[in-house]
């Protein structure tokens, strides 16, 4: 799918629907922006699995990465038009080997309900990455086969990569050791 086609389609749709609205460019029916030459798609949580499935069928056979970002201390960031910026963001990088392109998906995840449907059924390679995202950010994945901590010890409290997780203020604790004061 070339840029011109999509831009033309998107603007044609918009012209038909609403003359006032600025044309929102879309790919796989989700808004798209560009960041230093990379395509960035902005699906909602509900659209995530459908978008990934469509992209996989389209040649994005490999998942490179999946991780979280906590925007607690940087609320005014730019997101695609029509989207509400939430505290957490899930970033997924997919690779299309035929066209040699990487596409990023950025999913807004609200603080009040940090649950995202798992991509495990589409890309089994997300298993460890989703566990890491749960461990580090507390974003849990609905339908994941083994939603446990991966890097931190089993009994750990808190999610270290969250911005409100203290630095140097955490008592060092080990399983079975008396709690540090």
């Amino acid at each position: 799918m070339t840029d011109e086609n999509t831009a033309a389609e998107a603007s044609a749709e918009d012209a038909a629907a609403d003359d006032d609205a600025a044309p929102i460019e879309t790919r796989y029916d989700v808004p798209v922006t560009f960041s230093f030459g990379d395509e960035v798609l902005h699906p909602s949580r509900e659209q995530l699995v459908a978008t990934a499935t469509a992209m996989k069928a389209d040649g994005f056979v490999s998942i490179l990465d999946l991780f979280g970002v906590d925007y607690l201390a940087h609320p005014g960031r730019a997101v695609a038009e029509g989207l509400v910026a939430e505290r957490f963001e899930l970033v997924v990088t997919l690779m299309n080997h035929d066209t040699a392109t990487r596409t990023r998906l950025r999913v807004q995840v609200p603080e009040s309900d940090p649950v995202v449907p798992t991509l495990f059924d589409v890309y089994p390679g997300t298993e460890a990455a989703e566990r890491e995202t749960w461990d580090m950010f507390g974003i849990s994945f609905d339908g994941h086969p083994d939603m446990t901590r991966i890097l931190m010890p089993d009994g750990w409290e808190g999610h270290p990569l969250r911005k409100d997780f203290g630095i140097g203020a955490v008592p060092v604790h080990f399983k079975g050791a008396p709690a540090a004061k």
Partner: protein
Amino acid sequence: MAIIDDPQLSSSDAVPGERVYRRDGSAILRISESDAINADALTEVTADGTMVVNMGPQHPSTHGVLRLILEMEGEQVRRSKPVIGYLHTGMEKTGEQLSYLQGPTNVTRMDYASPLFSELAFSLTVEKLLGIEAPPRAQWIRMLLTELNRMSSHLLFQATNGMDMGAVSMMLFGWREREQVLRVFEKISGLRMNHNYIRPGGVAADLPDGWREDINEILDAIEPRLDEYDQLLTGQPIWRNRLQGVGTVSADECLALGVTGPLLRSTGYAWDLRRDIPYLNYEQVEFDVLVGGFGDCFDRYAIRLNEIRESIRIVRQCIDMMPPGDYRIQDKKVTPPPRGRIDESMEALIHHFKIFTEGFKVPEGEAYAAVESPRGELGCYIVSDGSAHPYRMHIRAPSFSNLQVMPHMLQDSLIADAVAIISTVDPIMGEVDR
């Protein structure tokens, strides 16, 4: 092709000689890490004749602190689960506290066998956000050094792989050759490992006098020794029996699990970022992308051995094509003033001080850049909020993804082959756990 849906079925139910593809669930043992430690699970043989065994984290062949929970049926591994996190030191969190100039000192400690690749990925991402490009000489120096680093990393693999297989002389040879490369690194960057040499905007220092002779000398020494490795190992029947047909994996499995690098290439899938999404000046040099055919341990061994030869080819071309010029960008925002200026100019002194205390500011945005490390695609994702520190710094570590394929390789193999499989996956636990 047979697909076994029922995780309870073992390989004996398949037609002999036919390749069995399993549903993903059946290769991975989903057991809690603390349950596996309890003594009952360790000693008791369950009703279905299986037994859970912990391997590592201090097992000598686990390359650091990888722990495997293996479900054994006699001598054969059925399901398994890699347990990681023993080296987790929160380096991504640390990265948020350090300025962009200090960043490479942090990321270089992730993949300690090939530190320059992490520095390169980090620097390329910061340069993307800044909208600058390192001068040509810096780019060629980066290529020269990362290819030398690929050699030293693969030589380290040959050494540890030899040791794991019981070829102890190979261990000594591998370490010996790697040491020669590290000595060149020490001369160029001042350090054998954790160089902090590739920085945003260029490299830390120009190449020292006599670098051409030094590098040519080690290339001339190492090249014939690779032929000795071939004589020692490649054709040897014991070596072949230990590696051939062991730990096979298909290209589809690798792609679905996000596996990259020599593991993916060993399945016959030709994918190398240096050729397919070129960065630096890789489109100007000639080299071959090596692929295997069976996806077994032997292919992975052979690919790494021959990639050393390809790297030597690239290094020789880098030496020939090295242009004169700046080794770091002449942008005053990013680069501190030269040492000589500090003595004569107050402004230069202040500027120097401010760059090293406050760091330079990077425009708001998010960017991802990736390089082909000896283990696969090593990427760096940075979110900048416009300050002098990354708001979020994430490293896409190839070993982290590559480890996920291990249960699929281990399934139905002998426990003695597990050592060969771990070794040829070549995980670096520093970057797995970060």
